[in-house]
């Protein structure tokens, strides 16, 4: 399979121990307690207090829980707080 330039960049980042989300634009999902942070997102799909769809380059991340709220959203990062029950990665 011919490696795409993006894949090559990601591979190089991994080999050089560089943060992949900063160099290759890969998605970074971070959960700390009741706070979910997604870097390099493409926007939100459905969002509500119990279910949210987060669009990324790799696909859709499904977040389920209770009391979910979208607290921060900018071109780089998206932060959701609340009681996070499950996170389905693409």
């Amino acid at each position, binding site marked *: 399979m011919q490696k795409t330039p993006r894949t090559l960049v990601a591979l190089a980042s991994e080999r050089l121990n560089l943060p992949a989300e900063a160099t290759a634009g890969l998605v970074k999902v971070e959960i700390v307690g009741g706070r979910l942070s997604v870097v390099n997102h493409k926007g939100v799909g459905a969002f509500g207090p119990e279910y949210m769809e987060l669009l990324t380059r790799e696909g859709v991340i499904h977040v389920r829980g209770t009391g979910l709220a979208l607290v921060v*959203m900018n071109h780089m990062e998206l932060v959701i707080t609340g009681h996070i029950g499950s996170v389905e990665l693409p």
Partner: protein
Amino acid sequence: MKWIDFARGTLRIAITGAYPQSCLNRMAALRLQFWDIVKRNDLCVEVTIYRAHLKAAEQAAGRSMCEVTVLDEQGILVKFAGLRRRPVLLLGLAAVLALVFWTQQFLWTIEVEGNESVPSDQIRYSLAELGVRPGVRWQDLDPQRLENRMLDRIPALSWFTINANSARATVLVKERIPIPDLVETREPTNVIATQTGIIESMEVYDGVPMVEKGQTVVQGQLLVSGLTTPWRTTVLHHAMAEVYARTWRTAEMISTKEMTAKTLSREVQTSWRLVVGNKLMKISGDSRISEAGCVKMITSYPLMLPGGITLPITLERVEIQSYTTEQVPRDPTALQERLMSAYLQAVRADMVAGLVHSSDGTLSEEGACWRLWAVCECTEQIGALSPILLETKEDERG
């Protein structure tokens, strides 16, 4: 709300449409800042944005088939929107600000620190003579030149500097330490009594004591001799001693029976004036005395800032009252009190060291006068140096 948000101004908007999330995605892609995201229902999302981003948000909403409605406005422009309808107030505010900035380049208060015996007013007066007074430009002050001239004008000062910052100048001074009186110990002296009294204590530093504790001495009597004759020789000393004695001082004072008293009229002529720096501005009335036999009373109300800073702006009320004079008899009780008080003050000033134990006075009438005979019992230092006069015989020198 943060101060930066208040300064920039924020809007609370509602994005309404079939798919409001797409508007949020567009706004994020356009790098528009928004926060406090609240989903009201499936068709409406509320967010807060900066006022400057409203147009871009409306365009993003338009492309997402959504509508933007402004729900609330916050910020400095909203807070002071009422001022737009008051141009004179705005002009006045601007004029006041300009006046404040303009007046900052002039000196308004001069404070003096570090002086103890030299009055602050004397220092200010000398500075005024050198051109440093309220109303001058503080940037024009030359501290080095002022220091040289002020030390020359007021010899009691040993160091002087002036720190001028904006409207306030602080003058720092240090006074000279006076040279202590030198005691000439080579001059032969005796110690004699300055008052008549009974010796209570003697402390002889040099010389031969001629009296002792409990002895009565008269004024001028020799207390400590500076002449000694050890081993058939004559030695002259600079006799020094502290001799405390119980003394009784008396005095006689005479005062007239009548005095001239002023009776003020009921009519008071009031005028007002404003003093800014050294300039006097009449506000109302006439503060001049037009005839003899008038009393002028001035009450000052200086303008002060919180913190005790006094500005050189004073409102003065001038009251002029005419009076008539007449001879009225003196009150004997008040007269006696006043005379005794003056007498005790004079006694204390005359003493080298000591205190007054008790005092008494008797007031008697003598013709057109009151006569007060006063006596006070004191313990005071009565020893005083008296030089020993030496005579040389010419025929011995021959």
